[in-house]
């Protein structure tokens, strides 16, 4: 049985990519916390990753050994936040929830990194036989 590095690592790579994009959008929300009329945006991480996983599965079944052409989130995936309470100036970014999401997203990024590190050290062991 052959091991394809792409297949082994690709899902986590995409997870990191999406996490980075999401942190960029959440940073934008935090930056515009005082901007009148600003509408907070976010990515639905779960739905994006499940579509990525589906297309990776489809590639695997088709026998493609290299994982390419999985589309990254586009502006269609960028959703609008429904605030807990509408503020008078029309801003839908709320400091507490946005900060929590940003922190959680950063922690999830670290989790993905840890998984990736574990995979890499597992592959290393398989290669060196130690």
């Amino acid at each position, binding site marked *: 049985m052959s091991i394809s590095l792409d297949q082994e690592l690709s899902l986590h790579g995409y997870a990191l990519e999406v996490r980075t994009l999401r*942190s*960029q959008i959440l940073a*934008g929300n935090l930056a515009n916390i*005082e901007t*009148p009329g600003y509408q907070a945006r976010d990515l639905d991480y779960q739905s994006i990753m499940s579509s990525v996983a589906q297309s990776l599965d489809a590639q695997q079944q088709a026998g493609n050994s290299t994982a390419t052409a999985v589309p990254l989130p586009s502006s269609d*995936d960028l959703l609008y936040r429904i605030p807990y309470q509408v503020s008078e100036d029309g801003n839908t970014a709320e400091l507490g929830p946005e900060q929590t999401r*940003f922190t959680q997203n950063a922690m999830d990024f670290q989790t993905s990194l840890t998984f990736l590190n574990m995979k890499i*050290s597992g592959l290393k062991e398989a290669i060196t036989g130690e």
Partner: protein
Amino acid sequence: MSFSDIYGIAGSAMQAQTLRLDTVASNLANADSIASSEADAYHALHPVFSAVYQSTLGSGDDVGGAQVATDGVIADSSAVQRRYEPNNPLADSDGYIYASNVDTVQEMADMMSASRSYESSIEVLKRVNSMQDGLLSLGQTS
């Protein structure tokens, strides 16, 4: 990778909040300034912020965060206080002086809000730093 964009976004937020603190400092410092006409009286300053959307790849179809831009600083147009102080050297011919229209309590609240927002930008920078750190040391056995 879009890490540099995040630094840019957090930087723009810090710049905006610094400007806000700047106006708060100016307003508080001039809360007791007086003048001899209504036009010369100190009017409280307030910054106007707007969001600038940016895309990660520049094609306009992909996702990106939003930086903060400062559209300008406006002077508060609410009425200034008019007091009768005929002995004041700055009093006009009718004996009135014109004080500022700074709302000290509102400025204090504004100051707290600005420094909170500034802190949250610093927190964003710290988090992104540790994300990038982790990515750089990927695959290195500890």
